[in-house]
């Protein structure tokens, strides 16, 4: 009997050792510190009716869009402008000034054109090549290829049709409010500064569903769309992220329900025989604090989600996007430093642990003072080679 008790004690201590031996896991991916441009902040503050000097602040990234190569990211900044970040050398990211406005969004999947809403002539369309080839210049000189005054809103999404080609780009642009869509055909002209544009009629998507949808994001192949379904009469929830398949006549069929409200979705590039992944940000209570934003993946084939970002080490995260090879890039702030996190495809896996809840593996590391442990010890930010 004593032997059995002794054996149980030894076994128990080994299990405890196995648990305590588990180190605090490092967050997935490579953190790329980015020194965003500094400048006088927008607007003015007043004290007793007197306008105060505008402080010089670092422009924080608000949204990003990820190039299929993973070498570029368009970041909309909180001063209402957008920059291209060249991260082809992750140790020396370069900022390229552009004429793009807040919420600039690319034509997926080619990135031949970049749309910029509420520009001088409405929604303006720039050539991505023009934007990055002008990087040596101090001023944003590229001119837009064409514009559309009427079909013009923030939160736009653009995706090409399967028969789209470099000499005839055929695509759809969906806008935020009531999912108004317009088709475009864009052909380059011999004078390369100009294009021939054929604009289609404005039409509503998903009229057959008869529900309130918003925040549309088209899939890379344009056949699907991630949307927020709000106040569905059949649902007890008032906001749930769903994926719809778009029919030929603009009708929609709900195919995936994420089960909860999230940020806008980012789709992976199509892969034969798989529905693929979507990435998003949503809120959850984390071990080092309540109500944190966390970057998550939803596996559409397995119908389950899992955390990617490390809520115990990143103070803010957001706006994940996939590269063509399946890597993921998102915005993060670690130890007060803004940057991007680049996660390779093979790292996009659910965290595993000997603990039933993987987050408990690192929970022990942050017991004393949740607030002090929010930071992450990263290498000092290298000087950014900015075009400013």
């Amino acid at each position, binding site marked *: 009997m004593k032997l059995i008790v002794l054996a149980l004690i030894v076994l128990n201590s080994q299990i405890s050792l196995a648990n305590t031996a588990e180190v605090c896991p490092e967050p997935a991916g490579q953190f790329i510190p980015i020194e965003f441009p500094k400048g006088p*902040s*927008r*607007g*003015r*503050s*007043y004290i007793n009716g007197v306008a105060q000097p505008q402080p010089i*602040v670092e422009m*924080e990234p*608000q949204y990003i869009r990820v190039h299929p190569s993973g070498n570029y990211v368009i970041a909309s900044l*909180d001063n209402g402008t957008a920059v291209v970040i060249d991260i082809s050398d992750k140790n020396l990211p370069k900022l390229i000034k552009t004429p793009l406005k*807040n*919420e600039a969004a690319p034509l997926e999947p080619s990135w031949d054109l970049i749309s910029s809403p509420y520009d001088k002539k409405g929604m303006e369309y720039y050539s991505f090549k023009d934007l990055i080839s002008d990087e040596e210049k101090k001023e944003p000189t590229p001119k837009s290829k064409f514009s559309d005054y009427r079909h013009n809103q*923030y939160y736009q999404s653009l995706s090409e049709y399967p028969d789209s080609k470099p000499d005839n780009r055929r695509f759809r642009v969906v806008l*935020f*409010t009531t999912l108004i869509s317009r088709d475009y055909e864009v052909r380059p002209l011999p004078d390369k500064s100009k294009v021939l544009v054929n604009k289609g009629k404005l039409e509503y998507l998903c009229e057959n569903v008869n529900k*309130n949808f*918003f*925040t549309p994001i088209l899939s890379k192949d344009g056949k699907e769309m991630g949307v*927020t379904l*709000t*106040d569905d009469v059949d649902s*007890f*929830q*008032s*906001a749930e992220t769903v994926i719809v398949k778009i029919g030929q006549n603009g009708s929609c069929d709900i195919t995936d329900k*994420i*089960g*909860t*409200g*999230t*940020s806008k979705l980012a789709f992976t590039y199509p892969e034969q025989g798989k529905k693929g992944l979507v990435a*998003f*940000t*949503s*809120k*959850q*209570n984390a*071990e080092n*604090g*309540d*109500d944190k*934003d*966390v970057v*998550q993946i939803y596996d559409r084939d*397995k119908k*389950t*989600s*899992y*955390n990617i970002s490390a809520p115990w080490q990143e103070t*803010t995260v*957001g706006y994940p996007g996939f590269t063509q090879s399946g890597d993921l890039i998102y915005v993060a702030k670690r130890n007060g430093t803004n940057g991007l996190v680049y996660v390779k495809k093979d790292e996009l896996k*659910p*965290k595993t642990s000997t603990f*039933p*809840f*993987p*987050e408990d593996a690192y929970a022990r590391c942050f017991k004393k*003072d*949740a*607030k002090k442990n929010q930071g992450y010890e990263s290498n000092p930010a290298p000087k950014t080679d900015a075009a400013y």
Partner: protein
Amino acid sequence: MRFILKIVSVTALLCSLNIFADDLSLDNFPCKKSILEELNKFGFQNWRPIADPSMGVKAYRGPSNQFGVWNELRFTEDKKNVKLYRINTEKFEITRWDPSCKKTSEEKVSILKDNLQDKKENWFSDKDLMKALKKHKKGIVYIWSPSMVYSMREYHIFKNFSKKNGFVFIPILDEKASKQNAMNAADQYKFDQGSRKLASVELMQRTSSTHFPKTYVFSNQKISRDPILGVMPEKTMSELVQKKLAILEQQK
């Protein structure tokens, strides 16, 4: 007598099941009795699923029966390992059950407690929300962010809608926003700079969506469980507000 006791216990069981009708039932949880005992300390209602935090782990959030106290329940798919977060402005309690139903608990300081002690900012807490609910018969709580352009552009539409329809309008700022960005936004879009920053468990825990604006409707000291998310034409907004009011009316 035994028959009456049986009826009472079955009724109690049905009531408890009914409380979990929003997609969460504790049936088949080996530690159901102990979990219910813990949950019943503050009560529980209106669970909503949040995205699975890890493969094979489900999570739900819901309010307790006490204002300012919320629950988040996580469990493995086999329901043998369970974790309950109980959150209020002061603290963050974590209770765990292992497969043998052994219960362990720990407490942490809520980030909100630190925030509320930071007097450089003007915070909107659960106390402020309670005051507003008691003071005003009906109102609209509008949570906006300088990082979401529509929440600034449409601020006036929500404000004017509130005024026109007899709702008090309470604007609240995203807790992550910098003071400078908020002032810039107010200046650019011509609205008051007086929004307080979000530090209310009741408002923060109500949705897992990161989108802004989030709009809550309150009436007769009750506030809508779920937000009206995003911006919309005034007609749609009016319909959604009416829907929220009808749900609140049913809760009387």
